């Protein structure tokens, strides 16, 4: 199969999956009022958890020291959900290969809670989504610490990331 055909096929599968999931939870267009409420609540919970953070619109950013590394955790309000994103490696640090998709899917299968995925810019990140109503300050604190710890562990153990 030529690389163009292969690319087209991959794009088609991604497109088909995106369409398939369009009706699912998490993909409905975000409502501004609900997103603002979720973002405000997230900021309040971070304050209560004594986190130092910056806020830009619907996104709050926490930087914490875990396992000898400075880890950034982004909490993005999307409608009534919070998307927690912790970058593992920037796109240029990831050694891509035809097998990498399979390797990362396997990694996802082994992780009970978080997802490892590429963001739209090609950066490798850990991800967790949760309804805002299901968490309080302690819950947010636990998620932030857990995802930061997992990010540090994943970075250290991944041989496809240029160190």
């Amino acid at each position, binding site marked *: 199969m030529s690389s163009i055909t292969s690319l087209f096929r991959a794009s088609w599968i991604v497109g088909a999956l995106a369409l398939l999931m369009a009706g*699912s939870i998490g993909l409905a267009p975000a409502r501004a009022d609900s997103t603002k409420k979720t973002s405000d609540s997230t900021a309040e919970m971070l304050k209560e958890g004594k986190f130092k953070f910056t806020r830009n619109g619907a996104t709050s950013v926490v930087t914490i020291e875990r396992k000898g590394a400075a880890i950034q955790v982004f909490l993005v309000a999307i409608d009534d959900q919070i998307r927690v994103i912790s970058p593992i490696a920037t796109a240029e640090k990831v050694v891509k290969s035809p097998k990498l998709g399979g390797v990362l899917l396997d990694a996802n299968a082994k992780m009970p809670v978080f997802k490892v995925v590429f963001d739209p810019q090609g950066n490798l990140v850990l991800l967790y989504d949760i309804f805002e109503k299901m968490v309080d300050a302690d819950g947010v604190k636990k998620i932030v610490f857990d995802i930061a710890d997992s990010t540090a562990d994943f970075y250290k153990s991944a041989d496809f990331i240029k160190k």
Partner: protein
Amino acid sequence: MSHVARTFRRRLIAAALALLFAGSIGASSAPAHANTTKATVESVSAMLKKAGFKFTLDGDVYLLWFEEKGIGKFPMVIAVEKDLMLITTQVARAEKITRTPELSDGLLAANWTYGLLKLVFDPKGNLVFRYGISEKMVDADDIKELIKAFVENTANFYNNAPFIKK
């Protein structure tokens, strides 16, 4: 319960437990405390009953069955470890999936686009939806909402995925 259903149930439970105790990245490295797990099981049982679900419980693993148009009857496993609930539904069995390298990339991309649920292959190669959450974070209404989301999305995905042989 038929022999096939029993075998299937055992496989699902084994897979769920294998995932929970894999010692993988993201998993707690501390040993499970039986009393904490027991307390979570009691709480989850009460919430499932309050939410109106029928289930069977084997130790700390719940089995629920659902039936939807197209996909037919399919199982949901909720495994408990300490305060964590790991909810899994099977979208398609391994032999029904046409696997390609492109499919792996597609599923990986879908996991970004997609909301709460994670789409992965379990150790047996079955395609499953999964979500993990602390029991402390949910009440009966929340569990009902999560289960409803699982059921709808599992059926929808199965019915529309071109790479699943029907």
